[in-house]
Structure formats: structure tokens, C-alpha cells
């Protein structure tokens, strides 16, 4: 059992000489002044800025969710008014989607690790990277302004013509906020793509890249291709709302389904922006703590690309009952089943990676296994929604709510936390209490299922989403869900305490406390500002957890790339 106090690892992974270099050259030694942070070009410091920002938004969005679950404990609207309730779920959605989930893994772990994993000194465009964060903050300010002025009640989906001609709330501010934060995504995406193409260390061929890098790369491609469509769509909404130019409202000669097509053309790929990086993180974790090369490495890399590509072709499955053509429904259903194949392959491959491993149950591994379980349930319930006749009954009910929370919260947030725990020693140079972290991981898994599984049953029974009040027969399941949310909330608060303790009092981390492969573990913890004292040279495939034992994936990788 790896624990906080275990001695320096000198196991089967030989450490390069600079790994145990004397402390004192870390990126954190550049100073703690506000100026040293706000004007930094160091990808590692920018990652920290992002981490602090999205954590703040996670807890704001979480507070809205808490009030929602409180309100839904009884059938009557007795905690907040209908208007306030609608504003709460809108803010919960807007904040969690655009200010937490989309930037979560790419902007924090991705920003910190991408250059380290490919042996680079920084991202390709360090100033652009800082500009991305400032755009994020700019978007955040608009959104906070909308909240302070009284909120928005359109739902995070902004369906027209409600959002353009009927809502009396501060829609424009939120549109502006999301518009601006979208450019932050685009710039990060461009930066990552160029970095992966141009800055890999000598010998680091495409099929020697860790799957985390593959996932970041595919995610960046989605961000760059899809986000501009969102930006356009938001501008069109604003034009109709501000100037009454008919685009979506039929009373002005517009078409409301046009909005849905444009919105989901972005927002469905955006789901993969949230989940692909999570898959990347989990691949690293499962391989490391099984002490085994990832099963079917190439299949995993191709699956990532397949998901990214097919993900662009399935948006119409959000519209099976919207009034779009029946034939469109049939085609989108077929494509949606297709996108499930690479996801299924990934689940099978993670499971098979455990086979013949030497599994260590440290906290990051518990988060990763939790991800695989919850993602499996979330993915499989996605098949119900891809099946046309079932979707007709289930869409716009709590079944959908449960489904996407299993993917995005059970899946992506578990992976994000797993990643934070895994790379925490690298980022901060400190260890945390593995015992507390394992406890939090289990608490989150239990609390999550307790909160969201009842919502599948509510949806099956026919409870629509976005309901402030509901018929009394749905109360039992709602009470269960709200009770689970209490456990879930405790699970999310817990890491704040033991990780803060770790920052202040935690034992110093070695360069490679988990005995992991990957270039990021070959430099000191925390890394120096320039990442590596000497540019690393790569001569082996990733996940070489068994020196001397060559798995078929490794053979493939060697044959394929020389």
C-alpha cells in the first residue's frame, strides 16, 4: 500500500539523475507576489490560476445545486419561488458547463502536464496561454454580473424564442459571458494542438504518447472546431433579443429549430470535451496502479479519435421529439449508437488492464475505478436515449438528468479529482493523507449513486426536468436523491481540508512517489520553471511498467513507429 509516508521509490523504474536534484529550483520559487502570478507565462502557474478559478465556480455551482435539491425534497414549491428556482438551475448549468467542466481537466491538469509529458519547456504560445486565462476571467465577470443583477431564467440551453423574446432576465450578460469564455477555450485548443505537433521531445513519436496527451489533443480539435459555432449562435440570439431581427422567433419570421441545431452542433461535441480528457486521466491512473501497460494502447488512441470525429455527427439526438424530420431522427439515432462503440472499447480495455496486474489501491486508483463504474452506467443509459422509441418517453425527464450527471459528474469530476490526487505531489511537491483521500473517494462514489440513481427511476416514471413543483407520487425518490446529495456535498468538501493540510504540513514528495512512467515523473517535484534540466530523449513506448515483458500493444507500437 503506497502511503504518504512511504520511503522514496526506487522500484522498477530507473530515475534519471536530475529527478532527485536538490530542491530550490521549483517553479514556485519564482515568488509569491500577486504580480509574479498575474503576469506569469509559465504554463504551470497558469494551471494553478485556472485551478483556483474553477474551484471557486465549482462551489458556486454546487451551492445552486444544494438549493435545488432542498427545494425538491417536497412536492410543493416551499423553499424558493418558481422564478428563483428557474434561475438556480440556469446558473447551476451555465457555471458547471462553461466555467467548470469544459475548462476543468484541459486548463488545469492539461496546462500543467502537457508540456511535461512531451518533454517541452512550456506550451507553444505562453502569452496566449495567459490571455486564455484572462478571457476566462472576463467571461466569468459578465456571468457574475448577471447573477448579481438578479439572474437568468432561460436554462443553460438558451432555447429560443423563450430566451430572445420572452425572458425578462439578464440574458445578454450571460450570453456575453459564455461568448467570451468560448474564446478562452479556442485559444487553449490552438495552443495544445501546436504544442503536441511541434514540441515533442526527440524520440517521442505519436504512438509513444501517453493517452492523456492523445485525449488533450482530440479535445483541443473539438474546442477549435465547435466553439466558433457556439459563438455565432450566441451572437444571433443577442441580435434577435436586442434588435428584434427575426432569426429564431417564428413571429419575426425565424425558425426555433434552427437554434437547436446550431446549439447542439456545439453542445454535443462539448460533452466529449468534458469526457475525453477524463478518459485520458483514467488511462494513466489505471495503468500506473495496475503496474501494467494499458491494454490495447492503439485501440485506445483510435477510440479517442473516433469519439471526437463521430461526436460531431450526433447532435440531432437531442431533438428526437422537437419536430425535426422523422428521417433525420433515424439517421441521428444510428450515428449515436455508433459513437457508443469506441466508448465501450475503452471500458473493456481499462478492465482488461487490471488483468495480470499488481493492483495498488491508492486514492487516485479508487477515483479511477469509480470513474469506470459510473461512466459505464452513464454510457449504457445513453443507449436508452439513442433508441428512438425509448427517447420519446425518456427525453426531458430526470432520466436524462441522471444520464448526463453520471457521465459528467460521476465520470468527469471523479477523473478530475483522481488526476488532482495523482499529480498533486508533482504540482505542489507535497504528499497528502492517502487514508483521508481514499475515504473521500469512497464517500463520493456512495453519495453520487445515492443522489443520482433515484433520478433514473424518476425519469422512467415520467417526472419532467426543470420542475419546481411535482406530483406527490414522486416524493419518495426525490427525498432519497436529496439525502444522497448531503453525502455527496460532504465528499466534495473533504478534499478541501486534507489538501489544504497537505499544502501547509504535508510531507515533501519525491520526484516519482507512485513509481509511474511518463516524462513528468522524471523531473523534480515540483518541477523547475524550465521543466527539465536536460531535454529528455524517449526510446520506449508508454506505460513500460514491466521492463523486460513486452505486451502486444508495445510490439504494435514499436512496429508502427520504428
Amino acid at each position, binding site marked *: *500500500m503506497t502511503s504518504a509516508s512511504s520511503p522514496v521509490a526506487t522500484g522498477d523504474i530507473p530515475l534519471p539523475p536530475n529527478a532527485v536534484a536538490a530542491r530550490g529550483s521549483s517553479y514556485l520559487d519564482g515568488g509569491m507576489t500577486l504580480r509574479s502570478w498575474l503576469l506569469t507565462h509559465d504554463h504551470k502557474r497558469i494551471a494553478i490560476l485556472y485551478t483556483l478559478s474553477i474551484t471557486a465556480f465549482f462551489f458556486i455551482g454546487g451551492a445552486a445545486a444544494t438549493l435545488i435539491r432542498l427545494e425538491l425534497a417536497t412536492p410543493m*414549491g416551499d423553499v424558493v419561488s418558481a*422564478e428563483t428556482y428557474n434561475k438556480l438551475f440556469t446558473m447551476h448549468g451555465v457555471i458547471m458547463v462553461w466555467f467548470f467542466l469544459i475548462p476543468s481537466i484541459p486548463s488545469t491538469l492539461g496546462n500543467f502536464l502537457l508540456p511535461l509529458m512531451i518533454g517541452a519547456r512550456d506550451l507553444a504560445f505562453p502569452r496566449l496561454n495567459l490571455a486564455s486565462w484572462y478571457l476566462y476571467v472576463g467571461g466569468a465577470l459578465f456571468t457574475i454580473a448577471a447573477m448579481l443583477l438578479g439572474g437568468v431564467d432561460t436554462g443553460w*440551453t438558451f*432555447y429560443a*424564442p*423563450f430566451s430572445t423574446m*420572452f425572458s425578462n432576465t439578464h440574458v445578454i450578460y450571460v450570453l456575453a459571458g459564455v461568448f467570451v469564455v468560448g474564446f478562452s477555450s479556442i485559444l487553449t485548443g490552438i495552443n495544445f494542438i501546436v504544442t503536441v505537433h511541434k514540441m515533442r521531445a526527440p524520440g517521442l513519436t505519436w504512438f509513444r504518447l501517453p493517452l492523456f496527451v492523445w485525449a488533450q489533443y482530440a479535445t483541443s480539435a473539438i474546442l477549435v472546431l465547435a466553439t466558433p459555432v457556439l459563438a455565432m449562435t450566441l451572437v444571433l440570439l443577442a441580435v434577435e433579443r436586442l434588435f428584434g431581427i427575426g432569426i429564431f422567433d*417564428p*413571429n419575426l*419570421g425565424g425558425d*426555433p429549430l434552427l437554434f437547436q441545431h446550431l446549439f447542439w452542433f456545439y453542445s454535443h461535441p462539448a460533452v466529449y470535451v468534458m469526457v475525453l480528457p477524463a478518459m485520458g486521466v483514467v488511462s494513466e491512473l489505471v495503468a500506473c496502479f495496475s503496474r*501494467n501497460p494499458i491494454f490495447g494502447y492503439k485501440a485506445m488512441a483510435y477510440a479517442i479519435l473516433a469519439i471526437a470525429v463521430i461526436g460531431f455527427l450526433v447532435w440531432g439526438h437531442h431533438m428526437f*421529439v422537437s*419536430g425535426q424530420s*422523422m428521417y433525420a431522427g*433515424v439517421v441521428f*439515432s444510428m450515428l449515436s*449508437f455508433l459513437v*457508443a*462503440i469506441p466508448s*465501450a*472499447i475503452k471500458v*473493456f480495455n481499462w*478492465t482488461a488492464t*487490471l*488483468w*495480470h*496486474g*499488481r*493492483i*495498488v489501491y491508492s486514492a487516485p486508483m479508487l477515483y479511477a475505478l469509480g470513474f469506470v*463504474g459510473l461512466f459505464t452506467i452513464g454510457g449504457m443509459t445513453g*443507449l*436508452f436515449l439513442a*433508441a*428512438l*422509441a*425509448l*427517447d*420519446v*418517453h425518456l427525453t*426531458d*425527464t430526470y432520466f436524462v438528468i441522471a444520464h448526463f450527471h453520471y457521465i459528467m459528474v460521476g465520470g468527469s469530476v471523479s477523473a478530475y479529482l483522481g488526476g488532482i490526487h495523482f499529480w498533486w505531489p508533482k504540482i505542489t511537491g507535497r504528499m497528502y493523507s492517502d487514508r483521508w483521500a481514499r475515504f473521500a473517494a469512497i464517500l463520493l462514489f456512495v453519495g453520487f449513486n445515492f443522489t443520482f440513481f433515484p433520478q433514473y427511476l424518476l425519469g*422512467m*416514471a*415520467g417526472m*419532467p426536468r*426543470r420542475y*419546481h*413543483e411535482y406530483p*406527490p*407520487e414522486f*416524493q*419518495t425518490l426525490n427525498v432519497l436523491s436529496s439525502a444522497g446529495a448531503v453525502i455527496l456535498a460532504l465528499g466534495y468538501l473533504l478534499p478541501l481540508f486534507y489538501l489544504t493540510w497537505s499544502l501547509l504540513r504535508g510531507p515533501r514528495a519525491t520526484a516519482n512517489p507512485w513509481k509511474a512512467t511518463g516524462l513528468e515523473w522524471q523531473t523534480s517535484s515540483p518541477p523547475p520553471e524550465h521543466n527539465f534540466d536536460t531535454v529528455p530523449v524517449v526510446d520506449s513506448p508508454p506505460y513500460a511498467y*514491466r521492463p523486460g*515483458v*513486452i*505486451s*502486444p500493444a508495445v510490439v504494435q507500437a514499436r512496429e508502427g513507429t520504428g
Partner: protein
Amino acid sequence: MSAFGLPEQASSIAVRVDHLFYAVTLVTGVTALGVLIAMIFFGIRYREGSKARRAEDVPAAQARARRRVEVAWTLIPLLLFISAFVWASRIYVERATPPADAIEIFVVAKQWMWKLQHPGGQREIEELHIPRGQPVKLVMTSQDVIHSFFVPAFRLKQDVLPGAYTQMWFTATKVGRYHLFCAEYCGTDHSRMGGDIVVMEPADFQRWLVEHRGAVDMAARGESLFREFGCSGCHGQNASVHAPNLAGLFGRPVPLSDGRTVVADERYIHDSILLPRQEIAAGYAPIMPSFAGQIGEDDILALIEYIKSLAPEKERPR
């Protein structure tokens, strides 16, 4: 009372949807269970420090077996997915094709209520009475934002759009009172925009229709609206203005001035009243004023019923 599992089955399609639901639940459940069992088994057997045989001891000849496993777990799900896709799509296509003999009922949604009209002139709010065992087709539109007509006991849902007609149809199979929900978020009182579907024995339904008969049926109401809004001034029999004759128009192809031809269905008539400049019948001047903002959606439906009721006259020279 509490709700677990799927709600009551009260429409002909519900049984078939539920069979599919249980089949998909079975297949995904077994797969998920398989993954779970494999994870637990590997997790215990290959925990650090256990004595199980590891990769070091396994001959490299297993590479081919591994490849076969990978192909199998790609192709088997693919076949299962195709089956589920075909099964679900067949029900969906049926749902989109109402039988010709269905009773038509007209639905107008507005923030935050459902207004329903029967062809006989019976009008209801937030409650819809229908007979058991007879196909019913709803022709629906919205007066403001998007709503969605959702009856869980029927396993059916259809969005209701402003500026367009959507339809859904069903055959109720069980007498009773069932929830009607609005399933598309539509503003402040979205969660209160509900009602009841009341399924009655056909004889009881006939009695209900008689008891609630309005002064006039929909077409007759449409006829008086036709005069009230001044439509008859141009489209009437004795009008001197050169305007299309509406008798026998419904369902017929109409050549447009831009060369296209459209069928004069509910949508065409609706749009011709609200957006008359959009599709001008060939041979006529674009002189009709728009009635947007002056006429409610339920009145437009009555006008359509009236136009439908106009029998084609003898061909007369134009």
C-alpha cells in the same frame, strides 16, 4: 402512493415501448454486471502481493488471443446496437404515421396552459377527454414559446412549436385519468403547466361530447371568424377583389408565383394568414395584409376547419 419503474401502460404503443425498454435493460444490465464482476475478480486476484500468475509468466503467444478478444468486444456490441436501433426505429416511425381514421383534436399551448378543441366545438382547458380504443391525432401549435405535450402513461411526447404544426397520435387502451405534463422548459410556471388526459369508454365519451357541445362546431365558429376578420371581403363568393377561391382548396397542390408548388395543408393556411407575403399563389397580387398579432392560434385552427369544410365547387373560369 409512490412511483417506481415505468408508469401504467395506457396506450397501444406503451406495451411495445416497454418490451424494448426491458430488453435494453437486460442486455446493458448483463454487460455492466459482467464488467463489474471482471473488475472485482481481477481486482482481488491481481492485487499487489497476491500469488496469482502475472504477465511475466505468460507466453507471448497470447497476442493473437488478445487480438481476437478485442475484435469480439467490438463486433458483438455493434450487432446488439444495430438490433436495438432497428427495433426502436420501427416504433418511432409508426409513432410518426397516424392512421387515416384518427379523430382530430386541436391543441394550442401557451404560457402556462393547454387549450384543447374537439372538431364538434367542445373546448377544454388543461383536461382532455378521449375515447378508449380509437386512434386520436393531435394537431398542435404554440402561441408563444416551445412547449412539449407529454403523457407518461402513453410513453409519448412531442414538442409544440410556435409558428408550426406538430402532431402526435395514440390509441388509448385503458380507461382512467393520466398525467399530462409540459416537458419543454417554458418559463416561470413551467412545472404547473399540466393537466389530465381522461380516457373514457366510447359510449361515455359520446355522452360527454353531447353534454359539452358548444353552440357551434369548430367549422361554424371558423365561418363566423371568416366574416369577423374580413376574410370574406376578398375570399368570399361575391368578392370583387381578385383573391384565391378557397372552396376545395385544402389538400390540393397550389402553384406559387416563384414557381414552386406546395400542398395547401394546415401549415400553408396558417402561414398564409400570418405571413401572406411568403408564399403567394401564382396569378395573384401580393395584396393580402398580415393578421399576425391580431388573431389567436385557436381561432386560426377554427378558420382552417372552416376552409377544410368548404366543398369544391364546379370549375369556374378564372
